[in-house]
């Protein structure tokens, strides 16, 4: 039963990441919708731990790449090295050849390196010297990013932000969760003990189940109204693209799956809407971004 699996996954993740049920649920939604995840927050709020926990729980091969400003594309993708004995070039795979990549502080790298990663994310394959290497399946990237107000960062351009299905902010834990965290065991030790709840095959099945969740015409009407409102209200510089609309539907499907439903409801769209769109919309006015998006949801009537 998909739902029991999902409950088990969430429970397992929540033993490590305390008091962040909404965030972990959204992160799982993102992965079930086959989307890449961008986590943006200040250091020390368990961005890396979250990625690691997800990898362990889902039984995925995990690699972490720490991005720095002197990093080159080859450091991610891999290099061809000449073998004197066989007189041939042998490709040595880079850290990206894994099931779950944690791209830590992706905005510290130069745009050239960033785009190498982002291309691989989009194509799910790597092309080097005319040779194409497929990446393993499932393949996820969880990228973390420091708020771009911090020094020494290269903010990702809009076109590349678009490759991420969701952008999440973790935020500080509440007092109770923080207390439990401070008094409890070391998270790294806990992580090592964490057992995989499902296999990667089960994960692929779950993804299939998510994409089979029913989308009624009435719901498409609602999504179209939301898209139209972002374009016509004049609150944003640019409205949402059709690709964003597709992303919204996929995310809503897996949210519905996680919530144990066979059909997507407006509530599912509303639940994933802020995380899916907030990195794709720029507010024109002095409004804070999240406010504008919340208001948009409350203004668009469900048909």
């Amino acid at each position, binding site marked *: 039963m998909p739902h029991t699996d999902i409950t088990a996954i969430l429970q397992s993740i929540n033993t490590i990441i305390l008091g962040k049920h909404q965030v972990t649920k959204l992160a799982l939604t993102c992965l079930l919708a086959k989307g890449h995840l961008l986590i943006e927050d200040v250091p020390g709020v368990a961005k890396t731990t979250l990625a690691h926990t997800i990898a362990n729980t889902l039984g995925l091969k995990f690699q972490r790449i720490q991005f720095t400003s002197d990093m080159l594309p080859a450091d991610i993708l891999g290099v061809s090295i000449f073998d004197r004995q066989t007189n041939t070039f042998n490709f040595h795979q880079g850290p990206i050849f894994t099931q779950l990549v944690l791209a830590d502080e992706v905005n510290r790298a130069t745009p050239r390196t960033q785009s190498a990663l982002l291309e691989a994310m989009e194509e799910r394959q790597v092309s080097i010297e005319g040779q194409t290497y497929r990446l393993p399946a499932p393949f996820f990237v969880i990228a973390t990013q420091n708020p771009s107000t911090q020094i020494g960062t290269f903010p990702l351009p809009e076109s590349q932000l678009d490759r991420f299905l969701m952008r999440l902010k973790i935020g500080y834990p509440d007092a109770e969760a923080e207390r439990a965290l401070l008094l409890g065991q070391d998270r790294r030790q806990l992580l090592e003990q964490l057992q995989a709840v499902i296999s990667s095959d089960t994960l692929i099945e779950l993804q299939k189940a998510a994409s089979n969740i*029913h989308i*009624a015409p*009435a*719901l498409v009407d609602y999504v179209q109204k939301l898209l139209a409102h972002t374009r*016509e*209200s*004049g*609150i944003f510089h640019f409205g949402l693209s059709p690709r964003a609309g597709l992303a919204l539907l996929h995310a809503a499907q897996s949210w519905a799956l996680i919530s144990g439903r*066979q*059909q*997507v*409801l*407006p*509530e599912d769209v*509303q639940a994933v809407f802020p995380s899916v769109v907030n990195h794709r919309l720029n507010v024109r*006015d002095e409004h804070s971004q999240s406010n504008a998006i919340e*208001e948009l*949801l*409350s*203004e*668009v*009537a*469900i*048909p």
Partner: protein
Amino acid sequence: MNSTVPTKNALLWLMLGLSLAALPHFSYQPMWVFVIFASMLGWRCMAIWHAWHLPSKQHRRMQWLHHSIAVLATVLLLTSYGNLIGRDAGVALLTVMLGLKVVEIRSSRDYYLSCFLGYFLVVTNFFYSQSIPNATLMFIVVTILTTCLISLNDAKQALNSRSQFKLASQMLLQAIPLMLLLFVLFPRISGPLWGLPTDAHSATTGIDNNMTLGKISQLIQSNEIAFRVKFNGQQPAQSELYWRGPVLWHSDGVTWTELDNETKSATLPNILNLGTTYNYTATLEAHNARWLFALDFPNALPLGIKAHFTQDGQLLSDDPLRQRQQYELSAHTQYRFNEDNNSYLADALQLPNNQHPRTQQLAQKWLQQTQLPLELVQLALTHFNQQDFYYTLSPPQLSGDTIDTFLFESRRGFCEHYAASFTILMRAAGVPTRIVTGYQGGEINPVDDFLVIRQRDAHAWTEVWVKGQGWIRIDPTAAVAKHRIDQGMNTIMPLNMRSPLMLSNSRQLAELWQTLRNNWDALDNSWNQWILAYGPELQKEFLSKLGMPSPNWQQMVIWLSVSLSIILLLISSLIFYQRKRLAPVIFLYQKFCNKFAVNRKASEGPIDFADRVKQLYPNNSAEIDRINKLYINLHYGNKSVSIDDLKQAIKTFKPPRI
């Protein structure tokens, strides 16, 4: 954000609207009205962009300044107008105080007040001009002021300025059927509801009741329209289009004047009409005097206006012409005017004492050749024609004895020079002569076939009385410039007087200008004929054509209310029909939602709403869940479920009253 304080955008919209509404007023109000209005709006703008202080309890000094400007404005108003009542003073008061109010806007109440006063300012514009450009400008202002009301009510700022303006335009466009209905059916009252203040009629250009040399040639600088004529059927030749205005008898050597009022209306003219009848409708622009310019000579009093004839053949309206006026006349261009006798021949022989000696000498010389009046006339005309007299639009300034100087020295003159000197010559020779002023000719607008008579067609000619033939029209100007009479003023005017200076170099551009002007005139004319002329008479005529028997105001009110109800009924049934057209599932679900004491928010999904309602109706949870599930499966699911279950469940569902 406090929603009661108008936003920056709302204020800017309001100021734009008010400035546009006040703009036409500045052309006839004293300069200081503009200065105060503009500086007040400027103050507000500086407050918006540069954080200047506004008058308030915290800024006593500003408050003091504001009050003193208000006092100053009142004093200026009183000194300029003498009081605060009357059209001009009232409008100036409204304009200035509105400017002062803009600085004071602190709450939405102030804002509403300024908006509504703005609408009032729009109305005052129509006291001055009801032309198409003015009406267009006011339509724009109304749209902007409506935008202001929308922006004030849009506390969440869900719409940007452009969509607010769009919405306002949509609302006004939707109101147009209603506007047309009210325009057609609202009972019209003849004359204004209340007495218009005396200053409502200010000076207009046009023919006057006296003439000095050089006066008419000033008039011909003006392209303004004097009146328009539409002939029903045949139209007389251009050279027969003499439109009679004031008739001048008396000269003091410089100024020619009319007979006094008593003598003027002592008797009626005795007219014998001959030849073809020409029927026409004239639309005369307001000129504040009483002349109804009529083609020589009408065979009856006009229809559509109360008027009478004077003994010298002028057609006078009973009331001064303060508004554009329409009347119908029929005329004969061949006629006999007082052929047997005329009581006031002495006035037609009057000469100023001891003036024009050389002119009189010339007349005496002619008298030695012949005694017959018509031969004397011929001698004079030949004199004008054979000697080197010139017809010019810019005659030289004459000094001293103007008639003598003109006849013997400058010899360059305009119609009034020829008419006046001819009259002196004839009178000196003993032939009764008088000057007739008015308009000659006119120009057919090819767009709508109206004959347009402009101020520049103003003309002066003469009439001599011959026993047995009556008053005969003699046009001395024709002896000098025949084409002026045969082809109209247009051929005389140099190109640069007919079109703006820049266009005069090129023939094509000047012609293009002419075409544009013709089209504009035709548009303006139909606006006058159909919109502005829609008074009680036209309304009656129109409504009886629509099938209303003997329309009166009671009937109009009934028709108005009936058609309004029909329109409202149509709109509401349209809304009702649209609701019916909703998918039956949604219709049922709405019915379900309406059973609770709380409303479903438009953006609330079914589960969220059910959760909220279940807290209020804990005993009905199971039933609510069941219905909700049915609805979700029907509306969002992919299983084929019957709608009847939902219908049944909702029908039987009766939540308790809370």
